[in-house]
């Protein structure tokens, strides 16, 4: 479904990604793990088009989308729950959700999707008219997820969704992600919470110093010596 | 070493005499500058058509324009450019006193004549500069005429309280200075002294204040757009003194007549010239102007026009463009016939090199055949035939 070839990205003079490649198949949950600053967000942002590439290419459903601008990629079915949620702070929950469906295809099914999301996340329905910035962290994360779902994506990418959430909330979040995946949406998950992440994913990539160092399924990686040492503190 | 420009005929085989004219061609005084430009060119074309400066082998006048942008530094720089680059014989301008004062100082340093046809600030010629001449009526002269007029009108209906309303640039303040000196001497009370910024978008507050002061007479100095706002404001707020008396400038502008004529019905205005003024040649010139530009000339345009004729006369007598010879010729000016009488009976200069006694008149906005016109009503000698003064003020 998604193919990332030899991606390199620079910030000014600093190289954040150097030749990262990976693939995601339809229906999977794939995670990218890596330490702070390894380039995980950069990778996700390159896929969603928010970052300009120095070199490399991105293919989505067989189509080369390297040159497609970010806002058009949403129309192709790529959605992102960005790091730090990035809600529209002065708008209501509902407005935030509606903004998730600005592309024509999603707009057609707007009411329908909204109902589905309210069903999935009943909390949002309760808070429909609350201003986003006054929500608690967990609620904000739900809005961010709901908002991404509003575009009816084929591929949904999460960037550190557990950041700043209590352990309990994190557990619920991971369940929610699995639930969304069961609904037929391919998931790409970037997390620092390595242990829990590896337990729910199909496959995972380890990103170190801007390129993929290890690839494998969840349990394999959990037992990988390097991963253990570097990320699990063992 | 600096080059003294030599006589016109010597330079480059060209027989033209270059006259520099600095005017506000851009910036917010641009409409005024543009009018002056037309009048100057008009006079120059006439003189050239009549054979140029005869004593100098029929040398033609050629105007080199400089844009002051209404900015003193630019005015000064343009002066310098016209003198050293364009080698003009003399400079006329710069409409605004604020630009004329520094620019003429620049000319003085380079020993070039600065001929001021319009600037009315007394400072222009009171600084004792050797090469600055002026034919414009100054602020003090206008005030004198206004007071004379008031004194005459007082005989018909008593006048005591006066409101001063004037724009806040050097021009308005200059006039106001004389009002404040002269009016009390003549037994009038100043009940309101209100300066305003001519660029203000809204003058209703000023109008309201005048209304509250309830004066017998309102004396004004304004540019076009503020005069228009005032006229409309006074009418709307039904301010009804015994007389509105303005001080030329904005109210004398054809655009004022067009934009606010109705509202200014029965206003008085002191001016140097009116289309209907009873002077030889005046009607003919007015007609030519209307044919060419579609509007009557303004008093300022007439001064520019007369200024060019005065310059031409001096050139004729000096037979040279040398500054000192020109200066002597100008000082000796005594023109009592020809086109300049349209402006004033005699062109001559006093010791400060300014025209001491321009023939000022007072016009009134009156309805003639259903159309608002400026009708010259005072003094009687210059007044339009059959014209009556409407006093005290009557609204429509």
């Amino acid at each position, binding site marked *: 479904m998604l193919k990332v070839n030899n991606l390199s990205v620079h910030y000014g003079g600093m190289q954040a990604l150097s030749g990262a490649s990976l693939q995601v198949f339809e229906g999977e949950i794939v995670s990218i793990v890596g330490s702070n600053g390894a380039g995980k967000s950069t990778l996700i942002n390159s896929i969603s088009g928010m970052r300009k590439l120095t070199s490399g290419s991105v293919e989505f459903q067989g189509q080369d989308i390297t040159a497609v601008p970010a806002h058009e990629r949403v129309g192709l079915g790529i959605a992102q729950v*960005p790091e730090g949620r990035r809600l529209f702070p002065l708008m209501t929950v509902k407005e935030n959700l509606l903004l998730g469906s600005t592309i024509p295809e999603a707009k057609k099914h707007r009411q329908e999707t909204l109902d589905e999301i309210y069903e999935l996340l009943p909390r949002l329905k309760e808070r429909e008219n609350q201003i986003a910035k006054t929500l608690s962290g967990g609620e904000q994360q739900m809005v961010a997820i709901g908002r991404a779902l509003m575009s009816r994506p084929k591929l949904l990418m999460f960037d550190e969704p557990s950041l700043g959430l209590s352990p309990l909330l994190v557990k619920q979040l991971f369940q929610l992600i699995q639930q969304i995946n069961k609904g037929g949406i391919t998931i790409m998950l970037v997390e620092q919470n390595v242990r829990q992440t590896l337990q729910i994913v199909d496959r995972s990539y380890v990103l170190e110093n801007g390129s993929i160092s290890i690839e494998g399924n969840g349990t394999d990686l959990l037992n990988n010596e390097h991963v253990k040492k570097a990320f699990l503190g063992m | 070493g600096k080059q003294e420009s030599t006589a016109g005929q010597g330079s480059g085989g060209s027989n033209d005499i270059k006259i520099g004219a600095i005017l506000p061609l*851009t910036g917010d005084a*641009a409409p005024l500058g543009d009018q002056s430009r037309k009048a100057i060119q008009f006079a120059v074309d006439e003189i050239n058509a009549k054979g140029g400066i005869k004593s100098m082998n029929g040398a033609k006048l050629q105007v080199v324009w400089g844009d002051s942008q209404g900015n003193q530094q630019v005015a000064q720089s343009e002066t310098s450019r016209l003198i050293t680059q364009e080698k003009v014989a003399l400079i006329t301008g710069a409409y605004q006193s604020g630009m004329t004062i520094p620019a003429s100082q620049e000319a003085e340093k380079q020993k070039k004549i600065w001929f001021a046809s319009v600037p009315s600030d007394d400072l222009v010629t009171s600084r004792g500069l050797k090469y600055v001449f002026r034919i414009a009526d100054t602020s003090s002269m206008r005030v004198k005429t206004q007071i004379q007029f008031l004194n005459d009108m007082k005989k018909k209906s008593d006048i005591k309280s006066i409101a001063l309303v004037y724009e806040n640039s050097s021009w308005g303040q200059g006039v106001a200075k004389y009002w404040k000196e002269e009016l009390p001497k003549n037994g009038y009370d100043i009940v309101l002294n209100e300066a305003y910024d001519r660029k203000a978008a809204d003058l209703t*507050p000023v109008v*309201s204040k005048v209304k509250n002061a309830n004066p017998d007479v309102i004396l004004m100095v304004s540019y076009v757009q503020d005069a*228009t706002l005032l006229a409309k404001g006074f009418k*709307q707020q039904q301010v009804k003194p015994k007389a509105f008396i303005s001080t030329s400038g904005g109210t004398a502008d054809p655009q004022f007549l067009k934009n606010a004529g109705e509202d200014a019905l029965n206003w008085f205005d002191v001016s140097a010239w009116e289309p209907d003024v009873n002077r030889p040649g005046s009607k003919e010139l007015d007609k030519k102007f209307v044919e060419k530009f579609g509007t009557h000339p303004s008093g300022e345009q007439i001064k520019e026009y007369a200024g060019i004729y005065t310059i031409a006369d001096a050139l004729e007598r000096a037979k040279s463009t040398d500054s000192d010879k020109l200066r002597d010729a100008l000082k000796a000016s005594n023109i009592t016939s020809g086109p300049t009488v349209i402006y004033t009976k005699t062109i001559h200069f006093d010791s400060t090199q300014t025209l001491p006694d321009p023939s000022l008149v007072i016009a009134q906005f009156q309805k003639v055949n259903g159309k608002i016109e400026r009708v010259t009503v005072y003094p009687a000698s210059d007044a339009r035939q059959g014209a009556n003064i409407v006093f005290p003020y009557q609204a429509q």
Partner: protein
Amino acid sequence: MLQAVVQGILMGSVYGLIALGLTLIFGIMRVINFGHGTFLMMAMFISYFGITFLGLHPYLTLLIVVPVIFVIGYVTNRWLIQPVLNKEQDVREPISALLLTAAIAIVIENGFLALFKADYRVAKTSFSDQTIQLGSIIINTPKLYAFFLCAIVTVLFYLFMNRTEIGRRIRAVGQDRNAAKLMGISVEKTFSIAFGVGMALLGAAGVALLPFNQLYPAIGSLFGTMAFVTVVLGGLGSIPGAIIGGLLIGIVESVSSLYVPYTLSPMIVLYGFLIFLFIRPSGLFGSPHDW
């Protein structure tokens, strides 16, 4: 006094409307539009031509002015300002964009001067000189109309921003442009629309002003400074701030002139504004953390 307050409110509503466009553009794009006054002049010219050449009723020219100036705004942003913004992407308040708007203003103002001369023009309308008397207060009818026009436009604009899809997108881009991109919103296009809408508001203000104001190419500078002060007074980017700021300035200007010569009233407004700013550095409705 009452008269002064009423006059102040009438003028203030126009200041508010002018400031509205400025604050919108700033709020969304973070660009201080130094050409604001000049675009106002342009709008007034379009309205003027509508009246004189097409014989339209002054307020009917809205139908021409608003779309035309919208397109002008859109194009200006798309082809001139946007490229500069793209070069300074991560800059918070792009200073070269500010300079660019000033340069554009110089070009437009003097272009109009070259084309249409510096003449003062007045749009003669049947109601230009009418007045309405309410007790002791006399009000110039076109000013009253202007007030209503401003009120209506403000309400429409409020509804536009809050009830329409486009308005929502504009706000979204203003609050977080990167997140907006992730929603499939084209930031460039939305900026251009926002700029166009800002200009359209200005167009309405121009139409409101024309019947009781004269028109000449340099008129923009007259409203420009006040518009900036209004916007900052209200809190940069704040819509209610612009309106209330405008009214406040109108009233202060008008009432203060009862006590000081009218020339000094801008000084009172400006220094009053400064003192206010020292007390509340973020304006009436600006959020203190934002700047």
